[in-house]
C-alpha cells in the first residue's frame, strides 16, 4: 500500500512545480462533431486543441467572437461550458514501418486488436506539398498487374492517377489488385537480393465506407499475402465526419515518411467523393458560405493540397496516389469529378455498360488516359502494346458501324475480329494481377496472331492456359524478360518458339 503511495508521490514530485500557462476557452455549442468555442484567443489555424476526457479537436474557423473546431474522438461526454485548451501543436500521426500490416484509425491508433503500434516518429497530418525544385519527373513504372492498364494507361511512381466510375464498377478492385501486385513484386524483388530493387509499400485509406467492406478488403489483402506491405487507414461510415475528413491527410503523412526516407509508396484514397461530402457537412455546420452543390468554396483546395503531396522526389523516394471518385449515372462532368480530374495526371474511367457486358476490369479505353504516358512504361510493353489503344479505339468505332448490318470488307472484318480478341484478352478476374513479363508474353502472342484462329469466346480460356504454360514451363524466359525489360531479337525468337510450343499443345 505504502509502496504504491510512494510511487505516486515520486511521480508528483517529478512533475514540474512551475506554473503551466494554457490558453483556454469554453464550449458554447456542440453538434455533429463540431464545437464552437468562446475564448482560445491565442489559437492558431489547424492547431490541435484538447477537450476534457482526452478528446482532441482541430481549430478550423477562427472568427472574431468564436472558434470553430472539429472534434476527433468521443464527443458523447462533452457538454456546453467545458474547458478547452490550446496545445501549440499541429495534429500528428505515427509513421514508419511499424504501421505495416496494421489497421489504424484517422489518428493512427490501432483498431485491429493487435496491440499498440511501436512507432518511433510522428508526422504532421497537414504538410505543405514538395516544391518544384525538390521534384523529379515521373519515369519509373508502377505496375498494377492489370493488363489493360499497364499496356494502355501506364502509371509511374509519383503519379496521381484517378480511378473513376459509378458504384459497383470495380474501382476498389483495381486499387486492391494494384496493392496485391506491389506485394508480389516486393516478394520477388527482395528474394532476388538485388541491391537496386526498390519495394513499394502501400497505404489504403478507406473513407466513409461500410465496416464490412473494409473487413473484406483486409481479408483479401491478407489472403494474397499483401497485408504485410500495407497500412490500412479506416474512417468508416460510422465515424464522425471530422475523422473522415482527416483520414486521407493522415494516410498521406504515413506515405510521406516512406517518400522522405528514400522508399516508394502507393496510396489509395477510397473514395474522395465521400471525403468531399464529409467536408461539406463540417463546413455547413461551421456555417461557412456554401457554393455549387452546397460544397464550400475551398473544396478544390481540399483535394489539390492532398494530391499535390504525391510526388517523386529528387534523391529520395516517391509517393504514388490512386484517388477514387464515385460518379452518379456516369456523369464525369459533376463538380467533384471535374475538380479531381483536373488535379490528377490522368484517369481510369470504368463504365457500367462494359461491366454489365462482362468486360472486367470495365476500363473505358476512350475516356481513360495517363498524362505521364509511356515514359513510365518499360520498353518491352511499348514494343508489344504500343498500338493497342489505337487498335481498340478503331475497333469500337467500326463495331458501332457494323451494328447497322451492312456488308463489311475483309479488312474491316479482320479488324473487328482482332478487336474482339483484344477485348477478351484484357478480361482479368479480381485479385489476380499478372506480372509484367507475363503480360508482355501474352501481348506478344496477340501481336503475332496466336489468338486469331481461336474463337473469340474462347480467348479468355486460351489466355489463361497460356499464362499457366509460361509460369510453369517458361520461368527462365519470364525472368529474362523481367531483367532485360526490353525485347531484343534473341528474346523475340525465344518468345516465338515458346508460343509455337504452346500452340502445338493447346486445343481449344
Amino acid at each position, binding site marked *: 500500500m505504502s509502496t504504491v503511495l510512494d510511487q*505516486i508521490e515520486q*511521480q*508528483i514530485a517529478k*512533475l514540474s*512545480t*512551475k*506554473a*503551466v*500557462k*494554457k*490558453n*483556454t*476557452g469554453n464550449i458554447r455549442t456542440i453538434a455533429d462533431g463540431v464545437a464552437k468555442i468562446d*475564448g*482560445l*484567443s*491565442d489559437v492558431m489555424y489547424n492547431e490541435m486543441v484538447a477537450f476534457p476526457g*482526452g478528446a482532441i479537436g482541430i481549430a478550423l474557423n477562427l472568427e*472574431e*467572437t468564436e472558434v470553430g473546431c472539429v472534434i476527433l474522438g468521443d464527443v458523447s461526454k462533452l457538454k456546453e461550458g467545458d474547458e478547452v*485548451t490550446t496545445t501549440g501543436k499541429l495534429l500528428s500521426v505515427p509513421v514508419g514501418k511499424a504501421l505495416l500490416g496494421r489497421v489504424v484509425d484517422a489518428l493512427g491508433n490501432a483498431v485491429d486488436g493487435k496491440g499498440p503500434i511501436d512507432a518511433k516518429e510522428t508526422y504532421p497530418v497537414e504538410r505543405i506539398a514538395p516544391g518544384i525544385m525538390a521534384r523529379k519527373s515521373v519515369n519509373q513504372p508502377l505496375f498494377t498487374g492489370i493488363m489493360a492498364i499497364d499496356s494502355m494507361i501506364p502509371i509511374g511512381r509519383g503519379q496521381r492517377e484517378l480511378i473513376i466510375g459509378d458504384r459497383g464498377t470495380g474501382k476498389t478492385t483495381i486499387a486492391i489488385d494494384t496493392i496485391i501486385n506491389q506485394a508480389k513484386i516486393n516478394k520477388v524483388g527482395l528474394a532476388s537480393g538485388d541491391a537496386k530493387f526498390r519495394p513499394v509499400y502501400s497505404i489504403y485509406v478507406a473513407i466513409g465506407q461500410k465496416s464490412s467492406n473494409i473487413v473484406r478488403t483486409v481479408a483479401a489483402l491478407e489472403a494474397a499475402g499483401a497485408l504485410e506491405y500495407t497500412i490500412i487507414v479506416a474512417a468508416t461510415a460510422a465515424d464522425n465526419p471530422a475523422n473522415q475528413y482527416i483520414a486521407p491527410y493522415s494516410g498521406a503523412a504515413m506515405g510521406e515518411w516512406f517518400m522522405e526516407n528514400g522508399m516508394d509508396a502507393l496510396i489509395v484514397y477510397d473514395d474522395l467523393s465521400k471525403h468531399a461530402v464529409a467536408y461539406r457537412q463540417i463546413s455547413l455546420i461551421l456555417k461557412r458560405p456554401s457554393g455549387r452543390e452546397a460544397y464550400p468554396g475551398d473544396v478544390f483546395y481540399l483535394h489539390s493540397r492532398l494530391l499535390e503531396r504525391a510526388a517523386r522526389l529528387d534523391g529520395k523516394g516517391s509517393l504514388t496516389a490512386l484517388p477514387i471518385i464515385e460518379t452518379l449515372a456516369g456523369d464525369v462532368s459533376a463538380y467533384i469529378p471535374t475538380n479531381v480530374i483536373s488535379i490528377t495526371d490522368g484517369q481510369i474511367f470504368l463504365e457500367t455498360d462494359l461491366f454489365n457486358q462482362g468486360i472486367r476490369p470495365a476500363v473505358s479505353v476512350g475516356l481513360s488516359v495517363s498524362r505521364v504516358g509511356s515514359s513510365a512504361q518499360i520498353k518491352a510493353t511499348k514494343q508489344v502494346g504500343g498500338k493497342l489503344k489505337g487498335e481498340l479505339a478503331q475497333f469500337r468505332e467500326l463495331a458501332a458501324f457494323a451494328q447497322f448490318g451492312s456488308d463489311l470488307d475483309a479488312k474491316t472484318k479482320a479488324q473487328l475480329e482482332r478487336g474482339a480478341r483484344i477485348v477478351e484478352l484484357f478480361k482479368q478476374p479480381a485479385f489476380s494481377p499478372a506480372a509484367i513479363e507475363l503480360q508482355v508474353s501474352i501481348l506478344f502472342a496477340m501481336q503475332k496472331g496466336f489468338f486469331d484462329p481461336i474463337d473469340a469466346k474462347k480467348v479468355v480460356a486460351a489466355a489463361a492456359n497460356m499464362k499457366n504454360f509460361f509460369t510453369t514451363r517458361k520461368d527462365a524466359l519470364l525472368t529474362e524478360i523481367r531483367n532485360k525489360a526490353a525485347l531484343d531479337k534473341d528474346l523475340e525468337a525465344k518468345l516465338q518458339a515458346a508460343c509455337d510450343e504452346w500452340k502445338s499443345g493447346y486445343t481449344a
Partner: protein
Amino acid sequence: MAAAAKQAQQLARQLFKLSVVDHVVSTDRVAGVLAYVEKHAPANAVLVLKAYHRLIAVELAKSEARVEHAGAVAPTALAAIAAAMTKNYRRPITATAHAHPALLAGLRVRVGDDVYESSVSSQLAALSLSV
C-alpha cells in the same frame, strides 16, 4: 438575420472602442454609451448590447487576474501576482482571490483566456492521463 447580426456586431465594436482608454475600460465611457443607446435606440438594440456586453466582458477579464486557491492566500502574494501580470501583459491588472477547494493545493490564475496552472489537482489530472 445574418446581416442584422453583422451590423449589430460592427456597431458594438465601434461602441467598444469608444469605451476603452489606455487598455482600460472606462466606467464613465460605458455609462455614456449606454445612455446613447437608450436615447437613440439603434436597430437591433438587443443584439448590439449583447455583442457590446461580450466585448466589454472579454476586455474586463483581460484586466483582472482571477486567483483561485485551495488554502489561504496572503495579500502580499496577491499583490505580487498583480504586479507580475501587469508587467507581463503591459497593462494594469488587478488580482482578486476566489476560494476553490477542488484544487487541493496550489493556485490557478486566470487572465482573460490565459490560465496559469500550478495546482495539485491539475498535476494529478496530468498524471492520470499519462498513466
